[in-house]
């Protein structure tokens, strides 16, 4: 079973190209999971204890308030990853994530991953760099979305 998860971690874009021993190490913290349509992967306020590598399906990042209802911020597809708040204290989710259809993912236990990063500086640096890359891309995209580029004040 571990061998299978190994391969799933190694083939996921977030970890693509990393040495085999690194991905095996990460796979020690991982297991293969599935979600049905509408099920929640994470809930705002709850402990942020998992990094999800999406393998199949689509996940909506949402936020909810009584005065606005449920607002979808963006979606993440297979090949992406969901759940970053496990990196920083107080390790609590800031948004909800919901499976829009059947979702297959690799769930990596955050505490296990953090320990592995503490124990191995190189691993720590590698992972943080990879994660930072994803976050930078998302930040840039979010900035552009904020500008409402398709908005009504364009003449054409």
């Amino acid at each position, binding site marked *: 079973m571990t061998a299978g998860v190994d391969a799933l971690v190694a083939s996921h874009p977030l970890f693509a190209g990393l040495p085999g021993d690194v991905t095996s190490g990460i796979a020690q913290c991982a297991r293969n999971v599935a979600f049905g349509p509408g099920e929640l*992967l994470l809930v705002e306020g709850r402990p942020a204890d998992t990094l999800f590598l999406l393998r199949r*399906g*689509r996940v909506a990042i949402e936020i909810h308030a009584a005065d606005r*209802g449920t607002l979808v911020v963006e979606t993440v*597809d297979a090949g992406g990853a969901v759940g970053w708040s496990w990196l920083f204290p107080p390790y609590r989710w800031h948004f909800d994530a919901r499976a829009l259809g059947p979702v297959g993912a690799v769930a990596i236990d955050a505490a296990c991953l953090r320990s592995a990063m503490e124990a191995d500086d190189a691993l720590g640096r590698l992972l943080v760099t990879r994660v930072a890359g994803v976050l930078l891309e998302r930040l840039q995209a979010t900035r552009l979305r904020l500008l409402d580029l398709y908005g009504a004040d364009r003449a054409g």
Partner: protein
Amino acid sequence: MRFGSTATIDRRGLDLLIAGLVEAGFETKGPTVRDGAIMPGTILTSADLPAGVRDAQGPGRYRLEQVGNDRLFDWAVGPGSWKAEFFPPSQELWRSTPTGEIASHGPGTGTTPLAIVGARPCELAAMAVLDRVLLDGAVSDPHYAARRVDAFVMVAECGAPASTCFCTSMGTGPSADSHFDLALTELDGDTGHRFLVRVGSDRGAAVLEGVPHAETVPAELAARDRVLAAASDAIIRTIHTEGLARRLADAVDHPRWEEIAERCLACGNCTLVCPTCFCSDVSDTTDLTGEVRRDRTWASCFDLDHSYLHGGPVRTSVSSRYRQWLTHKLSTWWDQFDTPGCVGCGRCVAWCPVGIDLTAEVAALTADDGRAGIGPGRPTDAESGPESTSGEGTP
């Protein structure tokens, strides 16, 4: 005759008691048989009460059966409750000119005092709960108070509970211990059809003084005890109330709410028949003369727009509305008013068109620490190699 004393009267005495109330200027109302159910109506003599009738109730079920005897109170509760007398389904609050000068204060004041003949102990408890909500706040509701404050209440203790009753769990029956002017217990026995009467107020004492009555003998007191014990034993539904507020709070994410929502129609029947539900809507209307009128009408937390904020309703799903109703009734009502919201009358069970049983749902919701719907997902066997990432079709 003073507070706390007891006496025994017969059917004729009861007739004279009712006549005395009428003569004293009360509008006398009590349970009557109407439209196939026990409903509030005018009582001028004991013949207007539901003689020879029993009710068979269950989840989503209510039937009256004629048993052909002359007993008056061998039934539990009908769909109507006494709250409609003090807090009518629709009520004008005030009328004014377009510039805010009050033209009339609403018909709440100056009404004929009400005498209730034959309320049930659970209904007394419900009235006490509504008193807490509408009279015990920072200010009292004058429209509710207008009719409630002078109301004369004669309770009839229960001898024949329905299968939907659970007053024993809520501490509201089958006996009546307070909040009444007079309490009747219909006795059986070979000494004839008689009623044990207990006095709960000076006003009740005065009314009882005026009718022929006999001193209660020990055998009659024992007969009352038997009636109440048999009634308690006959109650089959229960709610385990110890720590209930906390257990319901823990069940906020329980999957049962979704399951209930598959059955619940959000029709609001339960809130209509509930003797303690007090939610209301306020609406203003105006006409061609410009006169403004404000009305208050019964509302239900099952209405989609009950929780409306400018962005839309807060509780859109049926499950969130059912959860609001049940947790309010049995949990947060305590925080808000320091009393339970439910008196165990069982009306919501009988009058739910799909037969949702509050007692069964509470038991299911508090049976375990069920939390569901949140990750980390169901484990699956790891496949041997990378899969297509199209996300479609693969189970």
